[in-house]
């Protein structure tokens, strides 16, 4: 340890650094550090209102730019024909650091404002023109339909007039009169025409009838095409109506009623020629409007295309600028030296990298004053930073979800890389299913580069994030499938089986005979399909779960040791670790040894019956020392069991009392020496480096903000005792319940195997015997159904279930043996992580 290389075993060593940055270089320095992504800045102005901070103006400006960029994005998304947005890695870069930075940002501001105004104007005019178009279309409909009414009314009127005539008049006379009437078609009825919503037409009619007491003639037709509202996209259907009535008063009433019902009235001329003139005019205006609308649409689209070229770049720049100014708000302005003072957590290993980044930033900006970097001495707990790569990231995340590791304690994520997929596989063991998820993970890994750039669906994204976990899960599942000898619920016969089945007896029963072979790798295939196959498998898997569980818990318990050694807590080794280990091993370690021992004895050569281990364990606790000679596992069992039980019993007061006693003695010693009230932490302060001491002489060694820490342990003695009582009870009861909890390894693997077998026997097995063309087709269809059920039910559903249970085993059973998990995550200013957050 203490090597040049970072490890996953513990989180990185962090130091608190103080940056003294001249104001001119501040923006570029923060930009450079943001690209690096290695510094977590502390807020040096915690009491300042966000509106009173120094860089509020700049943040407001970037917010305005961000709003404009969001507006563009929403406009582009609303377009029906897709406007391509050039992706970020393809966009032209915009320089935001260096001497031209301010100029570029101002230019960007102006560009964005210009685009916004133009786009806004075009949107407004488009809307107005659409409204106009709609009105004109309605008017055209009214003109057309009323023409029909008038023609109908004409014919009716002539019919009405001619019916009063003498039918015996000669034809010529009739013609004269008809001509007369036709040439001067005069209506002495006046009318009101317009459009109204289809839903309102019946109400309209009724109201009019009541108001005018029936003194009206109304006709209406549907307009077949619906009108689409451009803003909302809703369709409304309208009807054209025309109302004939006599007299100004009535017409005025009609107009009022129409307006109140939301109808639109149109002035229609009685004269047919004038009507056709207006129709022509309306049509001409409509055509003009259509042309203008079309052109506006084209302009808008070309504007959006231009925006789409740069949109990704603008989003990136605006986001970064906002992050930079928000970070700069955290700094403290030192008026004496006209510099900004910043404090931040940095991994100690990266000190040189940060230094180079600072120098690079000053070179870019063209000034010659380099920011000063110095390490501070502090007793605050640093954040926890575990350096992961794309492989270990997934495992670390699932373990971090339980709790972030305390600074520099042993990281369970390292071991979860193997134990998690292994425990999953114990619950999932099937070669076929394991291969399916293995290949799925392999596919995702091959598509890594492409998928990382896309924005994935939320669920697919989750699976993609855990692709390496799934890969390992698949690999281990193939191995455990080989052990359980299970491939899609069938078993493999790779080696010579250890059992021979003789000819079945008269009742069809057939008992296997051992033939001396031992199936070397996995469960003998003879058990598959045997009637008591489940009996054997259950016993085997249950015992395996207990053995694996106790070993996993022992391993987790041993992880306490490096923590106690690192944080210099020798008392914890003697007062916590040793009694816990003795307690666990004397009962459950003994059980594991008994299981293995019982398996290794050839019971046919023994004259005692093989004892039930469960009863043996219960008897060990309830009636210690009394072991029935016919049910004993080995000689001297009674005595040994009593010794073990006494050991376990002794551990309980050991755990309860030793640590509080020693801590009490320490407190007495401190108080005896006259110090009052100062608690001290177990970690102890770090030694000051030479640099810090040197700087202390110059008066700038202290951290600027050192809040009163509430991290001192309460050295109230009662708190210590209570804490230890809880800890002891939790451990002892936990041992028993967690050991039983590992039986889920058996339960889930049993469920998985049974589901798989049921699926096979209910689908494919029933269709295997069919012959002929229909039989083959049916078989193919059933195979498709079987495969999709395998993937969705057995792999996905069971897989998720086994994932969850394996995770629970890690979080509760294993972590409770060693994990403190009281740290906080290292969250550096990182531009790369900014777009993950969005």
């Amino acid at each position, binding site marked *: 340890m203490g090597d040049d290389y970072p*490890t996953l075993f513990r989180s990185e060593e962090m130091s608190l650094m103080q940056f003294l940055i001249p104001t001119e270089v501040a923006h570029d320095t923060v930009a450079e550090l943001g690209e690096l992504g290695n510094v977590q800045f502390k807020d040096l102005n915690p009491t300042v209102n966000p509106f009173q901070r120094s860089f509020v103006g700049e943040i407001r400006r970037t917010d305005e730019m961000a709003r404009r960029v969001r507006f563009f994005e929403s406009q582009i998304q609303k377009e029906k024909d897709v406007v391509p947005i050039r992706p970020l890695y393809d966009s032209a870069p915009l320089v935001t650091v260096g001497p031209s930075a301010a100029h570029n940002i101002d230019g960007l501001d102006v560009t964005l404002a210009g685009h916004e105004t133009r786009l806004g104007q075009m949107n407004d005019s488009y809307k107005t023109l659409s409204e106009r178009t709609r009105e004109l279309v309605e008017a055209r409909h009214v003109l057309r339909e009323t023409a029909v009414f008038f023609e109908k009314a004409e014919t009716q009127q002539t019919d009405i007039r001619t019916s009063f005539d003498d039918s015996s008049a000669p034809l010529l006379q009739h013609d004269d009169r008809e001509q007369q009437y036709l040439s001067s078609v005069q209506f002495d009825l006046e009318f009101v025409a317009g459009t109204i919503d289809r839903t309102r037409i019946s109400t309209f009619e009724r109201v009019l009838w009541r108001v005018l007491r029936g003194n009206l003639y109304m006709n209406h037709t549907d307009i077949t095409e619906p009108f689409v509202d451009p803003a909302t996209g809703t369709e409304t259907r309208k009807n054209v109506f025309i109302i004939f009535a006599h007299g100004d008063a009535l017409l005025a009433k009609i107009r009022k009623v129409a307006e109140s019902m939301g109808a639109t009235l149109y002035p229609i001329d009685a004269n047919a020629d004038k009507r056709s003139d207006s129709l022509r005019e309306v049509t001409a205006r409509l055509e003009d409007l259509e042309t203008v609308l079309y052109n506006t649409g084209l302009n808008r689209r070309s504007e959006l295309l231009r925006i789409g070229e740069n949109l990704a770049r603008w989003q990136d720049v605006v986001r970064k600028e906002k992050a930079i100014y928000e970070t700069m708000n955290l700094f403290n302005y030192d008026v004496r030296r006209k510099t900004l003072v910043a404090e931040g957590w940095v991994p100690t290993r990266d000190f040189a990298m940060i230094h180079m980044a600072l120098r690079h930033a000053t070179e870019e900006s063209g000034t010659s004053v380099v920011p000063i970097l110095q390490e501070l001495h502090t007793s605050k707990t640093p954040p926890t930073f575990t350096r992961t790569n794309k492989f270990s990231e997934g495992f670390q995340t699932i373990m971090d979800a339980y709790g972030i590791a305390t600074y520099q304690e042993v990281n369970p994520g390292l071991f979860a890389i193997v134990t998690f997929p292994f425990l999953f596989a114990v619950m999932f063991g099937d070669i076929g299913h394991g291969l399916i998820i293995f290949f799925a993970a392999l596919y995702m890994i091959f598509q890594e580069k492409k998928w990382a750039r896309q924005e994935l669906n939320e669920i697919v994204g989750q699976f993609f994030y855990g692709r390496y976990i799934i890969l390992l899960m698949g690999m281990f599942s193939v191995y455990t499938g080989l052990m359980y000898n299970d491939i899609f619920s069938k078993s493999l016969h790779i080696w010579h089986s250890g059992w021979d089945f003789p000819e079945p007896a008269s009742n069809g029963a057939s008992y296997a005979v051992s033939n001396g072979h031992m199936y070397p790798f996995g469960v003998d295939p003879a058990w598959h399909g045997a009637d008591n196959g489940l009996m054997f498998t259950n016993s085997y898997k249950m015992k395996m779960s207990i053995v694996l569980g106790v070993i996993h818990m022992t391993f987790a318990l041993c992880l306490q040791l490096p923590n106690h050694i690192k944080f210099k807590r020798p008392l914890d080794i003697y007062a916590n670790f040793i009694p816990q280990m003795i307690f666990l091993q004397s009962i459950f370690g003994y059980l594991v040894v008994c299981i293995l021992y019982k398996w290794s004895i050839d019971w046919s050569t023994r004259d005692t019956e093989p004892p039930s281990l469960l009863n043996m364990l219960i008897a060990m606790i309830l009636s210690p020392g009394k072991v029935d000679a016919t049910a004993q596992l080995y000689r001297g069992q009674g005595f040994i069991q009593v010794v073990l039980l006494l050991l376990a019993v002794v551990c309980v007061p050991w755990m309860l009392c030793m640590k509080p006693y020693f801590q009490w003695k320490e407190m007495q010693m401190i108080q005896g020496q006259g110090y009052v009230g100062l608690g001290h932490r177990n970690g102890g302060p770090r030694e000051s480096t030479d640099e810090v001491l040197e700087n202390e002489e110059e008066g700038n060694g202290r951290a600027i903000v050192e809040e009163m820490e509430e991290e001192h342990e309460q050295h109230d003695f009662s708190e210590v005792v209570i804490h230890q009582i809880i800890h002891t009870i939790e451990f002892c009861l936990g041992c028993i319940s967690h050991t039983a909890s590992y039986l889920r390894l058996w339960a889930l693997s049993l469920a998985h195997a049974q589901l798989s077998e049921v699926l096979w026997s209910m689908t494919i097995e029933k269709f295997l015997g069919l012959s002929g063309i229909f039989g083959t087709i049916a078989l193919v269809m059933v195979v498709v159904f079987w495969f999709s059920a395998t993937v969705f039910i057995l792999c996905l559903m069971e897989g998720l279930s086994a994932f969850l249970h394996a995770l629970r085993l890690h979080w509760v059973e294993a972590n409770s043996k060693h994990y403190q998990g009281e740290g906080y995550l290292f969250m550096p200013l990182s531009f790369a992580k900014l777009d993950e957050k969005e």
Partner: protein
Amino acid sequence: MASIIPVVFILVVVLGLMTCGYLFVPKGPHQTTIRAAIMLTLASCYLMWMITYMAQLHPLITPYHSSKGGESI
């Protein structure tokens, strides 16, 4: 009859492989991870094999079929 010797033999082999894994992984940023992964994989795979093997060494029951035939799959 099968004996317990393969268990011990394979245990020795696995311990040897674990030691090799510990000693021969080159120094680098991933040394701890690779070491832990190799050793844990060897240990857990051996454990599972050992348990499966020992459960079948001296079985207390024999498989039987009660109905005719049965799948010998």
